[in-house]
């Protein structure tokens, strides 16, 4: 079967996953494994004054108890990924008696069995000197820390806002959220001859390899990270988590492999999360809907231990044409683990407020919300005047409106009902996501048996990298899909970038493309005895100048060694060779979304229909429509699933998800999947996804823009806008709960 670009090839890993054959990190057996369990802090801030492990050590089978007393060893200079390191946080538990957040690891138990380790964990008695703590940014006493470098000013937005014919000034809140992948965090660490093997679900095998090498003072090639499959990551498995370091340390001291699977409750504290945000959005417009002022002040929850922000304002500032733009970014430090990347970290919370405000403006103007967005479509990036590498937002809205049946919407609030009396609400919102790129290597091998194998240290989060990267090679080499093999998720492979920022297809795809072209050149040269002139590839045949074809496999078979293999290092133009080298060695090296000449973003238009019970005020998402322009779609099937998955999460964001904070004790309260609500199938009605093709060779040679995260962006606002249309109640926070509508 043709497996080239644009074909809806079925995921290569689908059968293995459906049958249970796929090995996830915790499934790799190691002889002689010992098992770990965690003890986490009951208090959110203070010091450990005493830790009694005697009863735990007496449990039969317990091999080691690791506390800040017994660790008693430096752990290198590794630090938080956003400070140039690879870690989830710059704070390392067990290196001191300090407690900085509730649920922090304070002790690690290692035993011959999982049961003994867990039993021992329950017997560790910890005493704390507790200090006042706050895990919510709207607790009293917090001060905002402005981030002046993130401020954007175009024109005089304050004056233009004050003088606007029509204006909106509103503040919107989004809560802390947790990724909650079904696959728990896990790490099995095994040392052999001074070399470390780690099985852990990873969105960044190269980064973890570099970090563990630094921490244990060994060469990078002596660290091997294996992560062929990831059971949901969403950003939580990108950076190195502290427990992996502790497990590796325990394994080294014990001289045995050690395995830890983090229990669900600890998933809320030992890794990162999406921090809470507060957005004040001010929009000013002329009576005809032309925007005159766009202002967005965003405050994000940060941590005392790491100052971190995910500014949506850099994106919202570029959304619509306006002569006057002003954005400000600030943070509030709280007593939590370091917040981190969670699918569309900046955009998903930031666009809730921003796109809700656009809807509020449309209502004040008496204008259709689709037309208001179209009216303010910018020719160029409104902040720096850069050309768009491609921007098809208006076609997305036109097509989306058509698919959704937007013209049937009566704009009057509460005017539409279903045959059984439910209130119908219809809303829309804009989605966007930056198309950044990063350096990547890839190796492509063509063999005499006809197979084409792609090797790349990129990652498949379950969204299709195994499939699409193979298609990129197949597209160049004309190899049928059944003969394509792809290897990912291993630090011994040619270096791939972090699976973050929706960059994998574009970046690693470009590297695969480059390597495949080199293989093709050698193949044609081999066919022409050193002279490729006049030779071409078609239908699995190498066609000569005389029009006669020879099977690819036959030509490869005649080459010395019977394989043609090439490795390529690709980098975006905006990065230097040094930056590329640093990136390929496990650094974070991103180019874009804005470069000197271009601004590169994916865009989309999202529509939602909600049904609201007129008496009980419960909301159900009956339909969602999303139309996206993400450059060239390599695989319509996996792209659709990815975008639809994002939209489903967006609905969950709008109506369900919140990591509730137990304020007096500064803890997350609903730390299990019964309490932390994510959408079930029953919550989601029809989901319609389409993409609009764009030719964009500015972003990369295969023309692929960001797909992975845009689906979630804007869906929350589209639903909030639909809820307003149904009920007349404007809810300026998520999740929108039944009590908000009673």
């Amino acid at each position: 079967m043709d497996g080239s670009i644009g074909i809806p090839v079925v995921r290569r890993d689908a059968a293995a996953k459906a049958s249970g054959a796929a090995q996830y990190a915790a499934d790799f057996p190691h002889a002689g494994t010992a098992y770990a369990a965690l003890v986490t802090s009951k208090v959110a801030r203070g010091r450990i004054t005493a830790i009694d492990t005697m009863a735990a050590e007496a449990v039969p089978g317990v091999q080691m108890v690791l506390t800040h007393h017994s660790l008693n060893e430096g752990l290198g200079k590794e630090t938080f990924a956003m400070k140039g390191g690879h870690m989830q946080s710059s704070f390392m538990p067990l290196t001191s008696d300090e407690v900085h957040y509730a649920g922090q690891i304070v002790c690690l138990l290692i035993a011959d069995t999982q049961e003994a380790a867990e039993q021992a964990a329950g017997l560790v008695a910890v005493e704390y000197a507790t200090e006042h703590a706050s895990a919510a940014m709207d607790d009293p006493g917090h001060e905002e820390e402005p981030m002046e470098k993130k401020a954007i000013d175009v024109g005089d937005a304050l004056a233009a806002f004050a003088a606007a014919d029509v204006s909106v000034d509103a503040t919107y809140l989004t809560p802390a959220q947790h990724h909650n992948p079904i696959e728990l965090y896990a790490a099995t660490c095994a040392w052999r001859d001074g070399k470390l093997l780690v099985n852990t679900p990873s969105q960044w095998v190269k980064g973890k390899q570099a970090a563990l090498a630094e921490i244990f003072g060994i060469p990078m090639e002596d660290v091997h990270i294996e992560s062929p499959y990831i059971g949901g990551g969403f950003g939580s498995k990108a950076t190195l988590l502290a427990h992996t370091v502790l497990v590796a340390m325990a394994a080294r001291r014990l001289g045995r492999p050690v395995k830890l699977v983090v229990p669900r409750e600890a998933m809320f504290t030992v890794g990162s999360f999406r921090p809470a945000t507060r957005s004040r959005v001010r929009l000013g417009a002329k009576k005809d809907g032309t925007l005159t002022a766009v202002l967005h002040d965003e405050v994000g929850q940060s941590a005392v231990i790491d100052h971190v922000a995910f500014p949506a304002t850099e994106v919202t500032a570029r959304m619509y044409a306006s002569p006057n733009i002003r954005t400000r970014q600030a943070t509030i430090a709280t007593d939590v683990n370091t917040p981190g990347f969670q699918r569309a970290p900046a955009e998903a919370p930031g666009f809730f407020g921003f796109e809700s405000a656009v809807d509020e403006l449309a209502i004040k103007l008496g204008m259709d919300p689709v037309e208001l967005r179209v009216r303010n479509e910018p020719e160029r990036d409104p902040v720096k005047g850069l050309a768009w590498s491609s921007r098809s937002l208006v076609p997305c809205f036109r097509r989306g409106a058509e698919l959704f049946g937007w013209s049937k919407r009566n704009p009057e609030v509460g005017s539409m009902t279903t045959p059984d009396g439910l209130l119908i609400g219809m809303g829309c919102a804009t989605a966007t996501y930056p198309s950044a790129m990063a350096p990547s290597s890839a190796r492509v091998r063509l063999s005499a048996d006809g197979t084409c194998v792609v090797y790349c240290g990129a990652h498949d989060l379950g969204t299709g990298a195994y499939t699409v990267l193979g298609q990129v090679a197949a597209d160049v080499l004309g190899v049928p899909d059944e003969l394509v093999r792809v290897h990912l998720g291993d630090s011994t492979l040619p270096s791939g970038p972090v699976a973050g920022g929706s960059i994998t297809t574009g970046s690693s795809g470009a590297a695969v493309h480059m390597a495949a072209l080199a293989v093709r050149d050698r193949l044609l040269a081999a066919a022409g005895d050193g002279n490729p002139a006049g030779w071409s590839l078609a239908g699995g045949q190498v066609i000569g100048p005389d029009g006669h074809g020879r099977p690819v496999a036959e030509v490869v078979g005649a080459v010395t060694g019977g394989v043609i293999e090439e490795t390529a290092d690709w980098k975006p133009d905006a990065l230097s060779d040094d930056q590329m080298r640093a990136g390929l060695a496990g650094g974070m090296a991103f180019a874009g979304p804005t470069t000197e000449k271009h601004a590169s973003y994916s865009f989309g238009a999202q529509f939602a229909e909600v049904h609201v019970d007129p008496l009980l005020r419960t909301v159900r998402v009956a339909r969602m429509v999303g139309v996206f322009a993400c450059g060239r779609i390599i695989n319509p099937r996996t792209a659709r699933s990815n975008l639809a998955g994002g939209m489903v999460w967006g609905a969950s964001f709008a109506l369900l998800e919140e990591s509730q904070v137990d304020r007096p004790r500064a803890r997350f309260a609903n730390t299990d999947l019964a309490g932390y609500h994510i959408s079930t199938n029953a919550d989601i009605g029809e989901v319609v996804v389409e993409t609009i093709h764009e030719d964009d060779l500015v972003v990369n040679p295969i023309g692929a823009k960001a797909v992975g995260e845009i689906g979630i962006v804007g869906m929350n606002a589209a639903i909030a806008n639909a809820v307003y249309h149904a009920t007349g109640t404007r809810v300026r926070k998520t999740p929108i709960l039944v009590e908000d509508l009673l």
Partner: protein
Amino acid sequence: MQPFTYLRPASLDEALHAASEPGTSVLAGGTTMVDLMRGGLAWPTRLLDISHLPGLADVQTDGPVLRFGALARMADVAENETLQRAYPALVESLQLAASQQLRNAATLGGNILQRTRCPYFRNGVSDCNKRVPGSGCSAVDGEDREMALFGTSESCLANYPGDWGTALAAFDTAVELRSAAGLRTVKFSEFHLPYGEDPAAETVLRPGEIVTAITVRATPAGRASTYLKVRDRQSYAYALVSAAVALEMEGDMVTSARVSLGGVASKPWRSPEAEAALTGRRLSEAVSLEAGEAAFKGAKPRRQNAFKIELGRRVVARAALTAAKRI
């Protein structure tokens, strides 16, 4: 978890004998017990597996008394056709609970012993009088959106989470308890305890006793009944507010009403106030809302859960109107 001995008795007699040993807990469907043990909330030293014992899964829906063997599975009973026709409230309470997978495994007897989902109880860390008597109740100054409005105290604000139990409370229900000493029958209304000074005590079940059956006195009110559950999501969530309503009517006149509430009380909660507001009245939307209002008159709201009073008023009203359509 701590090490425990797994016991698999050959007969009910053997099981009752084994149950009398201190430290013994009963394992049936396992959906609650295993969860509690994994979460460090139950520490039996002996786990007595009764799931295979014969005769305890029988369901009788004919005659003057309905009888549900304690080991009958939720999913199986939800498919009982007689029950679907004659007691829709009971069936709906089973269908709307948990997930299909859990309903396939969970038993009716175990279900009524389900423990609260209060996060402070479940997380194994926070102060909680139910888990560590005397340690205090974290919900008093903490997250209380899901906490109860009835039957609480400053020692415990937790909610009874079950749907089946809530629906049973609307009927004349009893629980059969067996021990080595013999059989006793307890009225369902007296089976669960409201959370007073000792929130760790949740039922009148004595050490060594096993729930063997649940009985419901047959009533024509079963036919005009419904169980309405409002929750944050459409599946796999506990009730914010639920209500079971069963009516007997002459024309549009309510001659007898049974109303119970879920998601709002420390135990399955019968509402004689709502029943009185319906009985002897011609049912209308206004009357149903009056009944809803009456149901929540005695509610004690906290900071975040006061909305349940207004929501509950509407839930009772909608359930009453739905039940009336089934006459």
